[in-house]
């Protein structure tokens, strides 16, 4: 407990340095700016802005990236409410009642409550990160290679249990990602694997080109082939101030949403989307008059928006303590850390206390900045919603090109970007979710390393994964998850959840 308080105090002193405050502000604003643009979700926002952080030192870079992340989420809720266009799954729920409120001329209060809820949730979940992360890191530091391998298996399977679409296809995407992740020089033997003599692939396939290709370029091709939708009609949001009655109605929902979100964000695969769905369901169940939901119930905005922000922040816990990304956004964060030469895992807290606590504290500062700056800026964000797609996408292409080239100075990485752009479009057209591919891609080398170490330590006995108690427990959990997916009742429930 004292550790956490001391840590936060230390973190605040790091995060409040002028440079880091600036990165935090820049990240939150840039994240909102790009996240508000129609058709640009948090994943693409982070991938696009990742090269911007490349010249910073790691702490500043991660502070800025975290700011971009919650800024992008904030931007997503703005488009959901005013335009009925969710940037990503976690704000799909916000559309339901948020847009209904906007149509009734109550868009302003919906935006305000979403921002207030996000801030309250952010405050609570920052506390939870500060308190739980050291505990979890303390446990994780005792993990052996076999335990780590099993943990990653669990993390990968867990991350797709709640994904939309076919489970087998998501699993196949993970495995394809693992294969791509293994391209390059093998650290143990020095052998160049699957590089086909291309020297530029000796260090492996670039992370930024893969992320931008699959999530940026592939998506652009998909949109250009289909119906190009322009900004659409933005509904005037009216006065921002919620009435006293609206505030009272949302306070309970904000509190519940924060707790639900903080808890679900910890789970692999949990993350923001699940939290928002869960919170909406809870609010609807608790409401005296559930029929209001879908017709502009403010609780239906306050709860899910708090929950997704809380979950977004607690999902940093598995990342920073175990090195395990629970969703594709966190996989991008791992990629960013590794670009800066930092291996995520339980040692981060001791080896890089400035980084860890600075980032945790900056989350809270960033949320405070968002509420102060963004509500008055809503008019500006709304104007961005009107940018036609035909101006937007060439900008995305150009920023991707310069970003990719700037990070590596390698023309070959642009070939990689194009190839993965094509792949991203093909996969999406055939209804393969590309997000799990990125998870596998990031985890591939780490899984291999731990597999090899475990086999060396066990003298070639593969049953080590079942004999080590932690590893066994993790694998049993994985098995239960897989069984749950395959059992028909759960599958039906899962479909129902997404149908709602």
């Amino acid at each position: 407990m004292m550790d956490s308080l001391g840590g936060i105090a230390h973190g605040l002193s790091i995060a409040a340095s002028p440079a880091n405050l600036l990165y935090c502000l820049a990240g939150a604003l840039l994240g909102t700016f790009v996240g508000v643009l129609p058709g640009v979700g948090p994943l693409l926002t982070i991938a696009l802005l990742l090269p911007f952080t490349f010249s910073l030192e790691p702490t500043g870079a991660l502070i800025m990236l975290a700011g971009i992340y919650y800024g992008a989420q904030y931007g997503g809720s703005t488009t959901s409410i005013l335009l009925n266009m969710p940037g990503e799954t976690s704000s799909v729920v916000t559309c339901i009642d948020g847009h209904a409120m906007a149509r009734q001329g109550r868009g302003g209060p919906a935006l305000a409550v979403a921002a207030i809820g996000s801030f309250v949730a952010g405050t609570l979940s920052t506390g939870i990160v500060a308190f739980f992360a050291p505990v979890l890191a303390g446990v994780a530091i005792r993990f052996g290679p076999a335990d780590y391998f099993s943990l990653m298996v669990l993390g990968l399977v867990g991350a797709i249990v709640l994904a939309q679409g076919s489970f087998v296809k998501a699993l196949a995407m993970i495995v394809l990602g693992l294969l791509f992740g293994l391209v390059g020089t093998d650290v143990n033997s020095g052998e160049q694997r699957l590089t086909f003599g291309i020297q530029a692939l000796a260090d492996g396939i670039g992370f930024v080109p893969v992320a931008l290709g699959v999530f940026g370029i592939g998506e652009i091709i998909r949109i250009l082939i289909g119906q190009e939708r322009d900004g659409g009609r933005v509904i005037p949001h009216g006065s921002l101030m919620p009435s006293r009655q609206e505030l009272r109605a949302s306070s309970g929902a904000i509190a519940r949403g924060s707790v639900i979100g903080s808890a679900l964000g910890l789970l692999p695969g949990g993350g923001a989307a699940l939290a928002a769905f869960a919170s909406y369901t809870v609010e609807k169940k608790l409401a005296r008059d559930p029929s209001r939901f879908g017709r502009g119930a403010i609780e239906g905005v306050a709860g899910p928006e708090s929950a997704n922000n809380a979950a977004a922040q607690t999902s940093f816990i598995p990342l920073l303590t175990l090195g395990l990304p629970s969703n594709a956004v966190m996989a991008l964060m791992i990629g960013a850390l590794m670009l800066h030469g930092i291996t995520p895992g339980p040692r981060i807290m001791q080896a890089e206390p400035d980084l860890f606590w600075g980032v945790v504290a900056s989350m809270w500062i960033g949320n405070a900045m968002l509420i102060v700056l963004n509500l008055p800026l809503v008019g500006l964000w709304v104007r961005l919603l009107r940018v036609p797609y035909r101006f937007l996408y060439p900008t995305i292409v150009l920023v991707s090109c310069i970003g990719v080239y700037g990070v590596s100075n390698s023309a070959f990485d642009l070939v990689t970007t194009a190839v993965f752009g094509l792949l991203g479009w093909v996969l999406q057209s055939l209804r393969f979710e590309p997000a799990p591919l990125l998870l596998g891609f990031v985890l591939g080398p780490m899984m291999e390393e731990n597999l090899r170490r475990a086999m060396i330590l066990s003298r070639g006995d593969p049953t080590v994964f079942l004999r080590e108690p932690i590893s066994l427990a993790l694998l049993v959990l994985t098995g239960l998850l897989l069984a749950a997916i395959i059992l028909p009742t759960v599958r039906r429930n899962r479909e129902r959840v997404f149908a709602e």
Partner: protein
Amino acid sequence: MASNIRRTEDLASGLALAALGAAAGAFIVASYPLGTARQLGPGAMPALVALILVVLGGVIAVRGLWEQGHGAGDGAGLDLRAALRPAGLILGAILLFGGLVDWLGVVPASAIAVIGSALASRRTRKREIAALAAVLAVAVPALFVGILGMPLRIWPTLH
């Protein structure tokens, strides 16, 4: 009808994944030592991954054969003819940027990339493309090179 298309798609994509896995697996086993159980070689993990890919691709293909499609798809599908113009122009723009940036410098390469990708949309007017190229080719490099200090060459250097 739609479900039929979807089933064929699943069958084909499953088979493609399985084939990719098989090809990669065969290549890996032929090229890199698998090592021993105690000392896994550089081929071991890739071969394992390729094997799993074959199995999963097979499952997807078989399910595509047997399972009823879940209603109509969202009309996506792999429409290669419709993709030719947007995909060709966008990917071409990226490749051109990569080929030219070192030689021409970042501002001219940016203008070319913007013009190429802007042509991919049927809606864009010619005058808009010129304006967009002019603005972006200056603004974006200014941001990256000027403010963020990326070490990129701005203009072509004369030898």
